[in-house]
């Protein structure tokens, strides 16, 4: 696609006006004028910091020098450039410029079609390690608990290859845990029989029995068929252990223990693609990609069998397999890890602990806390199982309820009386104000302070988690809110924020953030309904930057539904990033576009999202060897 098409791309940019400046036709020349005005003094002839504008002065540079465009765009977007003290553009022209760069770069990156992208080697994260051992050894316990927690990268998930580092601490724990797990497996009947598929005696030598055991176990541990050259060293290890005086059983469990410390178990790696062209991954690799996506664990027997038959990649088989996998209880693991990281619900109980004095019931009631925490996870899981529209996440007639939640949310729910304490899918009464994620206490909690609500936190949370358009960071030296004068009555949060917005430096972003949060002021810091706050009626009014006036949660949801394209694109990006276990690149935005289009055609059906990802180029293919290094980060 050449630059001729850029005008049409402006339509793309029109998705974002809600959260930022009004769109307008923007041209390459305007981008150049912007750069000349604000950057030329330092990056013109003098080339400060090793960057000259000349590198980005031709339309062709958008193709040939993507990296430069991306990084300059990021710096302008985050307000790092122009530097403090230099003349700076206002937020509108800043955003017109950055949106134009983003859209144009995406379009350029897509001109060659959808691409496969990298699939870097990564170790199992702590959850995956635990679940894999659970399924490999029939071990129903949190084996990986002693491992250090994993940080997150990419699209914000702890399965991102790029941030799964390995410290000396990991190695020591892997040694300990492998010993612990194998000692367990050697003792537990269910695990033992699964492992000890052969016994020496009656014409079976010790070597033969050991070989047979290894040939059965290693393919499952390494998640691929094994060859003799895989088995042989483990057989030798078995023999060496026997030489040290170990019995048959001790020696074979010792050898198996080693396989649990091997990188072939601990890492997910695929046979690299030597050709310059992308190629479809083999079905065993695909089975692992699927199982770690939807279960966070190793493939089961069925997946292995379908992979062995070479049928897994077939579209119909894959669709059915996705449905099957979502129905399996193991998919709970996936929804929980996805939802809790996407919505930041995982912070509950860690960084987000409501004040015990102000909210004693919440602090004391463990059942309430667990119901609150599980609600969004179970809600999304039901959308998958029922194959309902993902727009239910924005607003819905249904929710997940329990008697405890019903009481907390002050709604009457038609709960199954025999199991009112069990989370269940229920219809909400008319006017409940509880439909969608924004009606769920978990979400309202993570976007509050421990002792009060914060329209800023909630607004920023919506911009970031729901719409995928996080506000730019506050300037380095935030001017303090004006102090309340001695003796003057304390000001409300709304009054203080109004004052804050009077400062133009703050207004540009806060006029975007605050109104979204004000609309949710009917929910207290733990998500209960309130009509009054501090003895005064709650004021939920606000005006969006496009002039829309909103009042209360229902009108906020209507406004968000009007921006469903942004929401669906964000959800798709997050899900694709989670599925691939890496950060998305510019090239991946083409994949995102095509999945979004497919979702739209299918009424945003939840299973379509998963199926479309499972069938997408980056999920099914390996990039060509030469290709990987050239991938650019998204701007």
């Amino acid at each position, binding site marked *: 696609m050449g630059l001729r098409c850029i005008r049409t791309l402006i339509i793309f940019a029109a998705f974002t006006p809600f959260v930022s400046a009004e769109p307008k036709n923007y041209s390459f020349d305007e981008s150049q004028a912007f750069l000349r005005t604000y950057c030329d003094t330092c990056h013109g002839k003098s080339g400060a910091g090793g960057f000259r504008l000349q590198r980005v002065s031709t339309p062709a540079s958008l193709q040939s020098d993507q990296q430069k465009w991306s990084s300059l765009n990021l710096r302008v977007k985050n307000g790092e450039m122009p530097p403090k003290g230099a003349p700076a553009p206002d937020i509108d022209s800043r955003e017109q410029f950055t949106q134009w760069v983003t859209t144009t770069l995406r379009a350029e990156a897509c001109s060659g079609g959808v691409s496969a992208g990298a699939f870097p*080697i990564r170790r199992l994260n702590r959850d995956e390690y635990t679940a894999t051992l659970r399924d490999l050894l029939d071990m129903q316990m949190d084996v990986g608990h002693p491992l250090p927690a994993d940080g*997150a990268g990419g699209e914000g998930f702890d399965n991102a290859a*790029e941030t799964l580092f390995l410290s000396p601490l990991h190695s020591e724990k892997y040694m300990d845990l492998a010993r612990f797990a194998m000692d367990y497996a050697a003792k537990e009947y269910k695990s033992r029989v699964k492992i000890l598929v052969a016994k020496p005696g009656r014409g079976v030598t010790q070597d033969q029995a050991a070989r047979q055991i290894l040939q059965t176990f290693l393919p499952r541990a390494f998640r691929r068929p094994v060859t003799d050259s895989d088995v042989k060293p483990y057989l030798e290890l078995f023999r060496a252990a026997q030489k040290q005086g170990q019995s048959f059983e001790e020696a074979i469990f010792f050898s198996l223990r080693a396989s649990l410390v091997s990188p*072939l178990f601990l890492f997910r790696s695929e046979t690299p693609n030597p050709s310059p062209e992308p190629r479809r991954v083999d079905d065993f690799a695909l089975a692992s990609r699927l199982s770690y996506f939807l279960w966070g664990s190793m493939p089961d027997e069925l997946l292995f069998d379908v992979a062995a038959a070479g049928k897994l990649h077939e579209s119909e088989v894959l669709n059915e397999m996705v449905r099957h996998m979502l129905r399996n209880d193991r998919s709970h693991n996936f929804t929980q890890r996805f939802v809790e990281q996407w919505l930041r619900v995982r912070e509950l109980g860690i960084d987000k602990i409501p004040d015990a004095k102000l909210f004693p019931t919440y602090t004391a009631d463990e059942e309430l806390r667990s119901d609150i925490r599980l609600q969004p996870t179970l809600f999304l899981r039901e959308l998958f199982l029922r194959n309902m529209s993902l727009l239910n996440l924005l607003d819905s007639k249904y929710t997940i309820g329990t008697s405890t939640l019903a009481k907390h949310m002050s709604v009457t729910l038609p709960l199954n009386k025999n199991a009112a304490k069990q989370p269940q899918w229920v219809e909400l009464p008319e006017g409940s104000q509880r439909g969608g994620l924004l009606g769920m206490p978990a979400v309202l909690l993570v976007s509050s302070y421990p002792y009060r609500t914060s329209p800023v936190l909630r607004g920023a949370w919506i911009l970031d988690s729901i719409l995928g358009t996080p506000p730019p960071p506050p300037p380095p030296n935030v001017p303090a809110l004006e102090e309340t004068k001695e003796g003057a009555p304390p000001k409300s949060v709304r009054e203080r924020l109004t004052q804050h917005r009077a400062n133009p430096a703050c207004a540009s972003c806060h006029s975007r953030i605050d109104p979204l949060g004000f609309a949710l002021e009917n929910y207290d810091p733990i998500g209960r309904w309130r009509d009054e706050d501090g003895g005064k009626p709650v004021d939920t009014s606000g005006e969006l930057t496009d002039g829309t006036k909103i009042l209360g949660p229902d009108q906020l949801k209507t406004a968000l539904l009007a921006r469903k394209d942004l929401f669906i694109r964000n959800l798709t990006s997050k899900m694709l990033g989670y599925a691939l276990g890496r950060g998305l690149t510019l090239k991946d935005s083409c994949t995102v576009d095509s999945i979004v289009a497919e979702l739209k055609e299918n009424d945003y059906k939840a299973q379509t999202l998963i199926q479309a990802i499972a069938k997408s180029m980056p999920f099914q293919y390996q990039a060509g060897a030469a290709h990987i290094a050239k991938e650019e980060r998204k701007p």
Partner: protein
Amino acid sequence: MSTFRKSISRRTLLRGAGIGLGLPWLEAMVPTSVLASSALPKSPVRLAALYMPNGVNVDAWVPEGTGRDFKLSPTLSPLQDLKDQVTVLSNLWNAASKGGDGHYVKEAAILTCTTIKKTPGADIGNGISMDQVAAQKVADQTPLPSLELGVTPVAIGVDAVVGYTRVYGSHIAWSGPTTPLAREINPRSVYERLFRASSAPQGNTAKMDTLLLDRVLGDAKRLRGEVGAEDRIRLDEYLSTMRSLEERVQRSTSVTRTAWKSRAPIDPKAMPTDRPDGHAEHVRLMMDMIATAFQSDTTRVSTFMFGNAVSNVSFRFLEGVSAGHHDVSHHQKDADKLRQYQLINRWHIEQYAYLLRKLKGMKEGDSTVLDNSMVLFASALSDGNSHNPHKLPLVLGGRGGGRIDSGQHLVFVEDHPAANLYVSMLDAFGAPVERFGDSTGPLAGLLHT
């Protein structure tokens, strides 16, 4: 409306971290014999860094007076009885941390003096931290090269607002530009680790471990040969950590095992709880772990994080504090918040003083472990409200084996490099470097001439 699917029991789902493993290590281990103290070789120098998030209330931090004639500030007053053992450093800063965001750039660089790469994760980049320069120098002299500790797990997610992975805000120790070191947060696990590392293996454990490690290193080498250049970096991490385990096993069984002897026994009965009762007890236990590690000489290098960058741990257990740590640090000049901020700062200094006192109580020949240590207390910001990276709050405890001229308040010209402090510390540690980060030389007045 249907009852939720039967097999998902909410209790099971939320079980999370509930199960302790109880590794049967105790029976298999015995402490190595301890030499009579008279035969102990020259006391080694130890180095630790304690990191406090969110900066300080500057008005209550800076001592009055300079040189030896100074008065500790209200926040630093818990160090009164240790005054001749500490050095307060004023006006140093870390130039590499000036740009970027308010927290991650500052915190991740506090010991690296390197500007981190802005990334949600794909191309993470920092420098090696000064503690790891020290650790790598003496790696073959103690069972553990270093001990990374904390009380909160790695922070969750990517901070989309500023565009950094929170991995940055959760690590101060970096063994290389792309490798942050994971921290242990369970005191009992630390204790087990120290005990085991300082014990001689029983029976043929070492032999079996060597066999096993040989096997998996073989797998790793083969895999490394098959993958692309990018993936090799990950396998190199694996290879290097597994090799160092193997070396440790070999050292522990070497017939000429003269390189290391425990300097003080680690008592298996003194094992701490794995479920501390609250933040304060948790921190105390971790201080104990550093002291145990240093006294026994299981390691000579340790870092500890009181919290991750932007930590909002509740300090309501302190009389007069009602809000979270980060919230209070954005005091907006509110007098009450400033008061609470100072109380939180002071509490951190109390914990620091507790560790110093503990080390001081550990006799080592004619001196004490504290005499032979350097324990740095640092925050990566001065005033947290403005994310100010100038005039870093820094205190150095201990005499570094007699090299440090302690008992002073050293005041430098503004924006003097903190890297100079690290150059001098590494010198006293026995791992001298020509330069570190933006250093311009040793820190004047710190070391005895």
